[in-house]
Each structure stands twice: as structure tokens, then as C-alpha cells.
């Protein structure tokens, strides 16, 4: 059970669920949740490769995952600001109803 493959398989499942959420949700906040799932699967990959890849001097996988988390935090803050603006302007958070600029 405690092998590289099991962690990578879990990460694949997380990625697929996140992708499904991003593709099927219409609510902007729900799409953001799907993106968080995808980022978590990437982080799981990085930490698992760090653990099983035998490169443990400077823990590059952990540091890389840390930067991904930093990126996710700033992305969530800006995305929610945009979504709240969208709600104020269009009174909806469904991303397919905000089509003012569609040609």
C-alpha cells in the first residue's frame, strides 16, 4: 500500500474529480473549488516524488509544493474578489450568464 503508485493513483483520482468540477459547474465559487482539488493533486504528486525519489537533501518537492500553496492562496483571494464584483455587476455568479462581451 505504501508505495509511489498508490499515492500517484490517488492524485490521478483527485485530478479527475477536480477537472470534472471545473467542466460541469456553472457557479464561479464551485469552479474555484475544482481548481483547488487539481492543485492539491499536483501537490500530492510533488511530495510523493520527494518521498520516494530519494532526493531528500534540500526537500525540493516540499519547497515546490509550498510555492504552489502560496500561489493557490493568492489565486483564491483574487478570484473571489473578481467573483464578488461579478455578483455586484450581473447579480449572478454563473459564469455562463456573464456574456456582456460575447461577439
Amino acid at each position, binding site marked *: 500500500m505504501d508505495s*509511489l*503508485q498508490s499515492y500517484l493513483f490517488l492524485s*490521478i*483520482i*483527485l485530478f479527475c474529480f477536480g477537472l*470534472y*468540477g471545473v467542466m460541469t459547474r456553472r457557479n464561479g*465559487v464551485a469552479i474555484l473549488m475544482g481548481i483547488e482539488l487539481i492543485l492539491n493533486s499536483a501537490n500530492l504528486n510533488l511530495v510523493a516524488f520527494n518521498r520516494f525519489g530519494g532526493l531528500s537533501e534540500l526537500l525540493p518537492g516540499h519547497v515546490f509544493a509550498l510555492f504552489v500553496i502560496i500561489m493557490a492562496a493568492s489565486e483564491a483571494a483574487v478570484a473571489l*474578489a473578481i467573483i*464578488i464584483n461579478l455578483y455586484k455587476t450581473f447579480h449572478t455568479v454563473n459564469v455562463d450568464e456573464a456574456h456582456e462581451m460575447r461577439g
Partner: protein
Amino acid sequence: MGNVVFIGVAVLVVVSAFFVVTARNLVYSAVALMGTLFGVAGLYVFLYADFMAAVQIVIYVGGILVLIIFGVMLTNKIATPVLIQTSMPNRALAAVVVFLIFLGLTTLLFRTPWHEGATVAPEGTVATIGQALLTKYLIHFEVAGVLLLLALLGAAYLSRRENG
């Protein structure tokens, strides 16, 4: 014992991730997302990544998830259950596409002969990560600081009261 706990955590991650993307009510989605994030933190513990597990809980569960719940509260009427999915044909198409991607990735995973290096349990990763951040990854660390500052300013600017 360890195996049982690992399987439990894995099941928690998969089931709650499923609920995140299929729940009809956005609040249930957010609560399920908390389960997924805690589960991933548990997996980090299995991977000897104690610092990453703590960061996962503090930043994801304590920060990003609270932010997302704020977003749900500010943009939804909680009392009415909301339909937040696309139409059925689109969902079926998305499921097929995701399943094909899943098959492709799984085949890749089990066909590749992964090289597994020697695995020594580290004494604790905090000191190593701190040292790495301030020596080898110093520039990345500073750029991350600038990124956080920009995100702070950008979010504050975008969500001002008067829309300029």
C-alpha cells in the same frame, strides 16, 4: 495498522472529493472540500512531510476554505438550494472526457517502471525547508512575497465599494 489508516484516509479523500464536485448545494460542497483537504494533510503525514501537513491545514483549511465559504455566503441565498451544474448532456460529455483522461493517466502510471530511491525517514523537515528557502531558493522566496503583496493589493482594489 498503518495500512488500515492509509486506506481510511484515501477513502476519505476520494469520497469527499466526489461530493465536492457533485453536491447540489454549494455549502455541502464547501464542507466536503474540508474533508478532502484534511485527508490530503493526512497523506502528507504518511509521506513524512510534517511541515507540509501543518501548512496544508493552516493555509488551506484555515485560510482558503474560509475565504471560499465567505464567497459562498456573499453571493448565494443560503435558504434556497441552487442548481449549480450544467445541463445533463454537457455533464455526460464531461464525464466521458474525464474518464478517458483517467484511463490514459492510469495506464501511464501502471506501465511506467518507476525508479524508487532509498527512503530514509527524516528527523523533521522544518529546519531543512527553512534552510533551503533562505539559501538555494532565496529568489523564489522573495518573488513569492511580492506575489502575495500584489494579490493582497489586487484583491483589495477589486472589491472596493465604489466601482471605479
